[in-house]
């Protein structure tokens, strides 16, 4: 009696060479990340330590801290810095105030059938062009003919006009979805039994919100705030379009990069540093695990 012995199938190349498989998976994204992404950041840092010849306008490739000294000793620049951080914080707080009740409604009050639709509605503004949205706000905020001014006139008030307040309003509008989505996800993950348990142990709604809900969705709030804070920090187009004479960090960079690239680079590293400090603080809250 003969039985044909069939050899079991051999594993393919990737099965025998797990490292090669990993390289195939990550090769392209890593190349992009290192060369283009980190490379440009490194170039930025490097440039920040160079100067420009005041007479010829040519780049002087020698190491100096001159630009940073300039940035941190000129009162006007410090003021721009403080203002930009203030705007970013205000936008973050406003987004938070708007997003928490909205996300709560989406995740815990609205029926399961409506939830995907509500999420889609939150996402729709992100499909529209940034510039179009900011110009739309310019039209709405316009002191003479804007919708906002028209709404305020019965109360004897004018519109906010172009300035700090308009920047905050517009940025809040732009970045709100980035706050709503993580907070919504946080509320969705919150088990019902957690709220039941708190009520069962004698806590009224406000106490439950303070002692159970907020601590549990805090990582989501922080995740959202990273988006709203850092996106606001780097913005300059909104300031240009609805900010009137008000300048943000980005505007200073934009005004200098043609004439004095090293100084612009030094100035541009500031938001990077601020965001890094923010991230370091956030890391301690464990929120990065929720990004």
């Amino acid at each position, binding site marked *: 009696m003969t039985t044909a012995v069939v050899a079991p199938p051999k594993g393919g190349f990737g099965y025998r060479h797990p490292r090669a498989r990993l390289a195939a998976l990550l090769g392209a994204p890593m190349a992009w990340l290192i060369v283009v992404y980190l490379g440009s950041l490194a170039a930025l840092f490097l440039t920040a330590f160079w100067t420009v010849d005041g007479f010829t306008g040519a780049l002087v490739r020698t190491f100096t801290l001159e630009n940073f000294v300039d940035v941190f000793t000129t009162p006007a620049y410090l003021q721009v810095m403080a203002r930009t951080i203030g705007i970013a914080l205000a936008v973050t707080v406003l987004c938070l105030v708007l997003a928490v009740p909205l996300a709560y409604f989406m995740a815990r009050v609205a029926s399961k059938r409506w939830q995907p639709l509500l999420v889609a509605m939150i996402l729709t503004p992100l499909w529209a062009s940034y510039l179009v949205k900011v110009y739309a706000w310019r039209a709405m905020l316009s002191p003479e003919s804007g919708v906002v001014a028209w709404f305020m006139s019965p109360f004897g008030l004018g519109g906010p006009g172009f300035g700090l307040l308009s920047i905050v309003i517009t940025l809040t509008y732009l970045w709100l979805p980035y706050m709503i989505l993580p907070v919504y996800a946080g509320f969705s993950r919150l*088990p019902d039994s957690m709220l039941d*348990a708190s*009520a069962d142990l004698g806590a009224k709604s406000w106490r439950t919100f303070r002692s159970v809900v907020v601590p549990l969705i805090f990582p989501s709030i922080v995740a959202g705030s990273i988006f709203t804070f850092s996106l606001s920090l780097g913005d300059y187009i909104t300031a240009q379009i609805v900010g009137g004479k008000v300048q943000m960090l980005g505007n200073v960079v934009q005004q200098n990069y043609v004439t004095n690239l090293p100084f612009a680079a030094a100035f541009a590293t500031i938001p990077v540093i601020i965001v890094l400090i923010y991230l370091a603080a956030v890391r301690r809250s464990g929120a990065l695990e929720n990004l």
Partner: protein
Amino acid sequence: MTESIAIRLRGLSRHFGDVVAVDRVDLDVVDGEFLTLLGPSGSGKTTVLRMIAGFERPDAGSIELAGVDVTQVPPYGRDVNTVFQDYALFPHMSVLENVEYGLRVKKVPKVERADRARAALDSVRLSGYEERSPSQLSGGQRQRVALARALVNRPKVLLLDEPLGALDLKLREQMQVELKEIQREVGITFVFVTHDQDEALTMSDRIAVFNNGRIEQLGTPTDVYEHPATAFVAGFVGTSNLLDPAAAQLVLGRSGTWSVRPEKILVHVGDAPVPDGHHRLNGTVREVVYVGMSTRFVVDLATGGSLMAVRQNTDASHDLSHLRGQTVCLSWDPQYEYQVADPT
């Protein structure tokens, strides 16, 4: 009656959409008793528990706790505490903080709070775990924290929603004994929800068997097991042999649906004597299943239909599989046959 009523439910109903989850339930829970709500999933037992706790509001009916109508009172106003199926421990708080939570909400002074919380943890044998986070505990330990967190508030009634469901068999059996001990010690009324009939029989003073949103039978474990009121109870609590009216007429000469527990049926092989006064039936053994401490027989009756019989394995070397296909005689004392309400 001198015993006071801890919980009184009257005409309690709850619908979810078109589904009637709880259908006009009346129930009196006596102070200090261990009452189990037993039933398959979807039978309404958990909904009843959640309505007692206040998490769900009834569509109709009333709930009284210690004689006070609390139907409209929110959960935080009711003197009951709940042990949840998923424990629902707060992950951002330590074990001690979890247990202290209820006392902190009620503004119990700090020192007393800590003392009581430690005592509660001690009573569930978790001393030394105060500073751990719930995520560092095993399932059984979390379960005990949940128990301590509820008991520390000294509620009049403790509600337990399938608290042992997530534990493995050994731990579950151990916790069953512990829970019963704790209940005896603290003397609090326990209302316990489970779908596990063994658990219900082991722990309860009384069992309320739920089916389709209604209580089919309310009684002591012995009552429910030995004298099931309906075919559903007979089938759900333990295994039972149902004899439909036709079979009952033929075999017992009685009308209606009848039931006999498998362990009450004796299996006689060959010429073994059958006790006097027993109902007896001949049949062929279709299946012999060895289940460790007992052996289960499925016997096809000569008159049609089949019965299940269980014999204790008192004799270690006794392999009974050779009985498969043999003709045997089944018998039982007529006092163990009981009539059940028709399934319709």
